[in-house]
């Protein structure tokens, strides 16, 4: 890819073509990268929802057909990382494939938590293909109501 000096005065046609070429190179390299990994084993990112209420931050990750042991959840300071590996279940009877839309292999997702949480009270459940991680807020991060006495 070439760098082209920005020159608003030059309205030369060839400069425009040069720019188009470098744009095409950019697309080509992105396509080559995507095509290099075998189908179904590309890097993938399961969909994630994050919610916050007065008591906790709740993170949901959508990954069907996993085993609970294959998840790895870690909390480092204020960064929560959920990673894991989904393995394809194939037996010796498995023959020709007609559709391969599912993703397999390793994934990892991290988020920076909006508030301080109590690391000792973090819980996780895996149900119907959705991993739910509940991170109760640390006492100092919870909203407090301050009673003001009038005397």
């Amino acid at each position: 890819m070439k760098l082209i000096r920005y020159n608003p005065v030059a309205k030369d046609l060839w400069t425009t073509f040069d720019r188009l070429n470098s744009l095409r190179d950019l697309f080509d390299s992105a396509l080559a990268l995507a095509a290099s990994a075998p189908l179904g084993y590309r890097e993938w990112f399961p969909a994630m929802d994050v919610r916050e209420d007065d008591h906790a931050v709740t993170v949901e990750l959508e990954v069907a057909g996993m085993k609970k042991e294959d998840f790895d959840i870690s909390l480092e300071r204020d960064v929560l990382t959920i990673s894991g590996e989904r393995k394809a279940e194939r037996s010796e009877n498995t023959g020709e494939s007609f559709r391969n839309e599912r993703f397999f292999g390793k994934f990892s997702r991290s988020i920076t938590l909006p508030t301080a949480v109590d690391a000792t009270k973090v819980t996780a459940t895996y149900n119907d293909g959705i991993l739910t991680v509940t991170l109760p807020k640390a006492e100092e991060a919870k909203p407090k109501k301050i009673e003001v006495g009038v005397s």
Partner: protein
Amino acid sequence: MSKEITQQTTGQARPIEYTTPAVDIHQDGDGYVVEVELPGVSKSGVDLTFEDGKLIIIGHREQKEKGGRVLLQEIRPADYRRVFDLDPTIDPSSIQATIEQGLLRIRLQKAEAHKPRKISIN
């Protein structure tokens, strides 16, 4: 069960938005295995119908009341729907399905008459 549900789902006046689930299909022995990703759908939320040579897969998400402030929303809340034309060699009465952790696994068998047969020579 199938008839009632079909009428219910096809007789809708307004169009419903569905998510198309990811599917893997592969041969397994004499039949086929169809794996459909339906995260968020429990056993009772699956409607599997065979009608006019078509296999209709519908997954209803469990609607849970979720409070609080949304910080990130990537999960589509819509139900799932996918339809496949089945090969006429498949025996509709052989269709079996299980769902585990949001992964629906449908087993299809070829009808006896269409299974490969070894012919012995006398």
